[in-house]
């Protein structure tokens, strides 16, 4: 069972993992483990001689009753006397045995007490400010919410962190933060698991031996002092993308003190070509963001703006708001997507065209030409492209100023430049497209930056290489041979959450604090700054990058709190900094830090289109960050590993994504292992045949194939960084593929995708048809009359909870799945168990393909939580009443009563019940105990579990409302899936209240019950999905 769950860490003293009672108070004992190490040390010294005596000294009694007795051997007493003269008095021969023992116990007690006292060293007070519900004091059992921000690729998304008695357990979106608007993505959701991950690096090491921070500081200061004479010519600092104003300030200070030192940045999945395109199109670094609320027509050139990228939550919210067809609004925006690999954005497209990278570039040129924004080709050898250009360009031109062309992050600079040109030509700038100064502290060409570092490393001038975060040895383009280069620096130190491939190459490994453990700040997509506040004292002996950079300064030992607050105190212009600071930290946004939009001038000449590369029997290779583990930084996160990737439903693996046609051409099928050769590099990887993938291309998702990660991530998947060259970070032609063997075991949570005979699972239609005849979306479905049951109707005098899910909004991003996992203590089961159909997610996203066109089928996503049926088949068959109907219409699941016949699951037509085939929950790992939501039972082996509409949240709200003698208000209860949903597709509430949002949604003409024909009468209902195709492009 070792593969099913991460087990105890084995590293680090046990007590460090235990409950940091007052984590938020600043005086938790965890912080002091380092300083109060005396008590354990004493014990070690006491027992050590005894241990030695066991081997060497024979006079020890042959039989002994206790360690005391044993230790009374003369040799040991002698040693003790010399070691602890005063304490040993009670042990001498002139004292009788009983007194001796008692004295020993007294001394033991006293020293333990003193050890405890010494833990009470007063720490400076650092105030963090609770958000939303701010009680006088912390009330046990009531969580507090704190605003902070997560970063991905350096860019911030505001979050609220739920903290139970000082331990963060759940991340929610921050409604006031512009990038979140209350929603949350999978990475933020899963970051609490990362915080408590027992595989995080826990100690500072030099060549694998544990050292103190003092030792490192000593070495660092010595180098820094020595470098003063050369202006720091030997100092190199390598960071990921930095948007933090404080860190930027620190880095500038380092540069100032050591003008010859260099700061490099490398973010493997960052917007490299968007930066290059800004230089190409505007001649200056410019940052771009969009506003979808005014866009009637959107053309995505391989931009998965609904599910990935720094502002995807906001974009998804705005985009879906423009698609919500209600009684009042009957208009929808229109989305065209060209992309190689189906993405959540692609599934929402009204017209989707799978194109490989070079085709997309050609497409962009042709579209720009048709719009009059560039001079490029007018025809293509790809008939689909030619067919598409006219309808799209007409549609765009009809919507000047209310349209949008977006280039994907990984498209080449030319496509970005063309998008800029098209948006300018369409008059979208300032309406749907906004330009600002860079949000990055120092926007550079990161590839060039890395290449410069490589050059310096080769020349042997690097004395100190300080790597702050990231994993460049793993993620750098393979032709840079970073592994061999890094070791050329004389002193190498790597600050990281995990010991990874880069740590292996560095003498010093520095454990990093998680963002929930320390202070910091970062900018969002529009420049808005959030001050990150810690939710818990560092679990391990980590420090943040801020602290490390401070080591170069004159006051190296000041705390992160002082660093961040100090910087902002310097920036603050007005009066009463304290109040301002409190406000900023409390709100999670620093007011007026959003960067003002500007209108850069577009260069007239965009250059000529590059010649389209012919495949010539090879394939195009496309590199993309993985949908769930990103660039590899989340590889050790079980929640993200087990989260089924959008559309493919693949877990615990990446794969060579091929279209059915390409696979047929290459003679391979899903599960075949192939040898990929590209340039002079090659690797082995399994094939996944993906309907809707572009023909002639193979998409490889980065981030897998680690040789050094934690227990969860090591050795999972294959490593496409091994093929990624600096000349082609996005895509390139020239991949060869040869079948080696077959039968690779993929773990996918959905094996069948066809909708052919069961069209009525997903109700769908076009907007036009729907406007003409609303019932048309329900074609093929039947709903029997309500009387068709012999059971009497349930009566709900109070509340009756219900849920409505708008399929027209859902993008299938999977945030709800992780949110549910975090909220409800859902176990991770591992790849082998997923393969056996035992994944535990309470809500899942089903993906269906429709139609016959395997190379471009429409794809439908459908989130399926428990349907909470009125006439629930599960309730009928449970022999022990472990699942029964509540007075508010929920199908309650009584874990304590369940004996595990699994009959309920057999009889559940929706298959939403999940069974603990083994003891899946981790009852052992100390740090993971902190992770659990205290309001939800941790299920043991042999018990059925399922979604209960977050009944713990319902009850908390009901208790509150009863104390205030009122009814629960609409919107007061948000289920975890609902709260995190970027598109507000999930609405929960009281269906007894006709004015509630959920009642209104259920009254919508698009509303339908899943499998209505079997008369289970679910409380969860769906709203049919609509598309808005361009009539001109039809036929």
């Amino acid at each position: 069972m070792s593969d099913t769950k991460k087990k105890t860490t084995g590293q680090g003293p046990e007590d460090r993992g235990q409950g940091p009672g007052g984590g938020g108070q600043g005086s938790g004992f965890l912080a002091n483990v380092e300083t109060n190490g005396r008590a354990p040390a004493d014990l070690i010294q006491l027992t050590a001689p005894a241990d030695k005596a066991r081997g060497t000294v024979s006079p020890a009694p042959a039989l002994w009753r206790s360690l005391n007795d044993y230790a009374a051997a003369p040799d040991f007493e002698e040693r003790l006397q010399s070691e602890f003269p005063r304490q040993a008095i009670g042990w001498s021969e002139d004292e009788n045995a009983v007194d001796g023992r008692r004295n020993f116990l007294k001394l033991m007690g006293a020293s333990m007490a003193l050890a405890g006292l010494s833990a009470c060293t007063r720490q400076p007070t650092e105030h963090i400010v609770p958000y939303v519900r701010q009680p006088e004091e912390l009330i046990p059992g009531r969580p507090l919410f704190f605003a902070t921000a997560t970063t991905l690729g350096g860019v911030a998304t505001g979050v609220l962190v739920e903290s139970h008695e000082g331990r963060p357990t759940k991340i929610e979106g921050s409604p006031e933060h512009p990038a979140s608007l209350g929603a949350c993505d999978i990475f933020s959701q899963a970051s609490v698991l990362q915080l408590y991950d027992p595989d995080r690096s826990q100690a500072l090491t030099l060549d694998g031996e544990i050292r103190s921070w003092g030792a490192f500081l000593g070495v660092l200061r010595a180098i820094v002092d020595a470098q003063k004479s050369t202006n720091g010519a030997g100092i190199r600092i390598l960071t990921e993308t930095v948007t933090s104003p404080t860190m930027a300030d620190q880095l500038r200070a380092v540069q100032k003190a050591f003008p010859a030192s260099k700061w490099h940045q490398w973010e493997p999945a960052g917007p490299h070509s968007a930066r290059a395109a800004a230089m190409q199109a505007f001649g200056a670094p410019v940052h771009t963001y969009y506003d979808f609320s005014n866009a009637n027509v959107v053309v995505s050139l391989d931009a998965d703006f609904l599910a990935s990228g720094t502002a995807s939550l906001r974009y998804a919210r705005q985009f879906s708001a423009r698609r919500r067809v209600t009684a009042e609004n009957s208009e929808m925006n229109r989305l065209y997507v060209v992309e190689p690999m189906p993405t959540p954005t692609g599934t929402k497209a009204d017209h989707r065209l799978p194109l490989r990278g070079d085709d997309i570039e050609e497409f962009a040129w042709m579209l720009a030409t048709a719009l009059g924004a560039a001079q490029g080709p007018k025809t293509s050898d790809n008939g689909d492209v030619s067919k598409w250009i006219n309808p799209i360009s007409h549609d765009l031109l009809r919507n000047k100023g209310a349209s949008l062309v977006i280039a994907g992050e990984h498209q080449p600079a030319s496509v970005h430049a063309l998008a800029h040109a098209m948006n300018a030509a369409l008059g979208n700038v300032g309406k749907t497209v906004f330009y600002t100064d860079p949000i990055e502290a120092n926007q550079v060409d990161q590839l060039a930056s890395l290449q410069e570092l490589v050059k310096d490393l080769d020349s042997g001038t690097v004395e100190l290489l300080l790597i702050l975060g990231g994993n460049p040895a793993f993620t750098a383009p393979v032709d840079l041979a970073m592994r061999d280069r890094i070791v050329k620096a004389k002193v190498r130190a790597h600050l990281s959450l995990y010991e990874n491939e880069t740590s292996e190459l560095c003498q010093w490994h520095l454990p990093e604090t998680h963002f929930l453990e320390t202070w910091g700040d970062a900018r969002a997509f529009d420049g808005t700054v959030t001050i990150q506040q810690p939710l818990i004292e560092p679990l391990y002996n980590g420090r943040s990058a801020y602290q490390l950079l401070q080591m170069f300064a004159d006051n190296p030992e000041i705390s992160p709190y002082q660093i961040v607050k100090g910087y902002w105190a310097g920036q603050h212009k007005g009066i009463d900094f304290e109040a301002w600071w409190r406000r900023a930290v409390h709100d999670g946004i620093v007011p007026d830090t959003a960067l003002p939009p500007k209108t850069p001038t577009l260069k007239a000449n965009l250059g000529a289109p590059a010649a389209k590369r012919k495949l010539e029997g090879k394939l195009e290779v496309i590199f993309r960050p993985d949908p769930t583990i990103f660039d590899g930084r989340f590889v050790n996160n079980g929640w993200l590993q087990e989260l089924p990737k959008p559309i493919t439903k693949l877990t615990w693996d990446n794969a060579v994504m091929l279209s059915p046609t390409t696979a047929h051409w290459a003679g391979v099928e899903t599960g075949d292992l192939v040898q990929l050769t590209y340039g002079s590099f090659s690797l082995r990887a399994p094939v996944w045949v993906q309907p809707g993938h572009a023909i002639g291309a193979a998409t490889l998702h980065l981030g897998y194939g680690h040789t050094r990660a934690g227990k969860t991530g090591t050795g999972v998947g294959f490593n496409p960084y091994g093929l990624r060259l600096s000349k082609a970070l996005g895509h390139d032609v020239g991949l060869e593929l040869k079948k080696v063997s077959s039968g690779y075991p993929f773990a996918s949570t959905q094996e069948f995708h066809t909708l052919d005979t069961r069209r009525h699972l997903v109700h769908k239609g076009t907007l036009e048809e729907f406007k003409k005849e609303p019932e048309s979306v329900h074609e093929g479905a039947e709903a029997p009359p309500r009387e068709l049951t012999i059971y009497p109707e349930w009566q709900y005098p109070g509340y009756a909870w219900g849920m409505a899910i708008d399929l027209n909004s859902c993008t299938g991003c999977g945030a709800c799945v992780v949110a549910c996992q975090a909220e409800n203590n859902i176990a991770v089961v591992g790849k082998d168990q997923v393969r056996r159909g035992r994944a535990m997610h309470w809500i899942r996203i089903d993906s269906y393909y429709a139609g016959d066109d395997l190379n471009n089928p429409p794809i439908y996503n459908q989130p399926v939580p428990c349907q909470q049926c009125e006439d629930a088949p599960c309730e009928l068959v449970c022999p022990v009443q472990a699942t029964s109907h509540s007075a508010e219409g929920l199908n309650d699941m009584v874990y304590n009563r369940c004996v595990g016949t699994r009959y309920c699951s057999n009889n559940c037509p929706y298959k939403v019940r999940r069974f603990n085939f083994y003891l899946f929950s981790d009852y052992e790992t100390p740090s993971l105990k902190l992770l659990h939501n205290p309001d939800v039972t941790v299920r043991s082996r042999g018990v059925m579990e399922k979604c209960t509409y977050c009944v713990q949240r319902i009850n908390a709200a009901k208790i509150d409302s009863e104390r205030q003698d009122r009814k629960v208000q609409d919107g007061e209860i948000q289920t975890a899936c609902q709260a995190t949903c970027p598109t507000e597709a999930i609405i929960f509430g009281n269906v007894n209240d006709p004015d509630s949002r959920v009642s209104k949604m259920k009254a919508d003409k698009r509303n339908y019950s899943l499998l209505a024909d079997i008369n289970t009468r679910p409380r969860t209902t769906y709203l049919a999905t609509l598309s808005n195709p361009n009539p001109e492009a039809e036929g």
Partner: protein
Amino acid sequence: MADEQQVIDKPRPREIIAPGYTFGTVTDQIATVVLTKKTPLFWFVGFGVGFSLLLVFLWAVVVLFAKGVGIWGIRTPVMWGFAITNFVWWIGIGHAGTLISAILLLLNQRWRNSINRFAEAMTLFAVACAGMFPILHLGRPWLAYWLFPYPNTMGVQPNFRSPLVWDVFAVSTYATVSLMFWYVGLIPDLATLRDRTASRMPRFIYGIMAMGWRGSARHWSVYETASLLLAGLATPLVLSVHTVVSFDFTIAIVPGWHSTFFPPYFVAGAIYSGFAMVMALAIPLRAAYGLEGLITDKHLDNSAKVMLATGLIVAYAYIMEAFTAWYTGNVYEHDAIWHRMTGPYKYSYWFLVTCNIIAPQFLWSKKIRSKPALLFVSSIVVLIGMWLERYVIIVSSLAQDFLVSSWGIFQATRWDWATYLGTIGLFLFLFFLFIRLLPMISIFEVRTLLPQAKIEEEV
């Protein structure tokens, strides 16, 4: 007491007992099997196989209890696999014993007298094997007692709407009645053994078990009444138990399970497999112990006819299953049968059709019915077929039900097989103990078959 067995003339085809038997020779031949000091090699081989498999079973159960039901191949959506298949199969096998002892008694089918004892023992052991699976398959088997309605401080009672609770009553009643019927029927023979054994210990034990039976007229009168009453009690159970077991499926809404003709279909299938098991046991036994005079070809012929008849009912059920699926026009029912025939379990399905429908058609031939070896083979074929039938009904229906997204294929693990083969081991273990320690044929009932018994009656 003669240890050597007596040579009896081979019976003529239509007789249910060979000519030449006397009261004494009948008693001698049956009692000798038990009272002999020489245990035949055949017994050791059979017992050894049973015992080895029993150890496999114990091993599998220890692992099961230590780790959980995850060691089996069950998964979402196929939450029931081998365990419930085995349960239904074993319970079905038991039915033949009760049918023979109760219904055939009431119908005055005297040929049953020579086979009812071991058929009842078979019932008992089959129910023992079956009865374990509902407990073994629980996620938390230590809480199995929650299925019983007992007064408790939690104030919770079982859900009487659930077929699994009906199962508890049906199976426990069945086990109790079968045990009582079997034991009451044993008493006169136990007394015979008590009287004939030479050694002290067996005499003591058989004496205790015979409960003071002296064979007085009063005893016989009471015995006849009790046996008739128990037969009356057991008769409805033959129909009800498997009907209730079939409710486990028909009450559920799973396409492929949810159908009204399951009860008769299951009962017929149960008797079908039960008679197959009777023959599979009787044929080697009578050969090994030279009991052809008592278990004659006539018995085998009759059993084969019952098999053929029930097999035809089962065949009819298969056809009706497909017909209703088509006739309802219901996409789920239609697909359930279609997937069963053409989907991932098609080999199992067509193999079971071959075993259960095509193979038994040979039993129309009198020639085949008179060849014990062929009958043995055909009964084994039917046993396999009936196991597969339950497997296919349970697994293929669950594997592909309503939501396409949740479909998943069940694959048995070695632990599934170990548990299944293990219960066969338990069955053989118990059965071989039975034939060594108790008379496998009812002595006193066979004696009533003798012509002498009839003459006296007439006088």
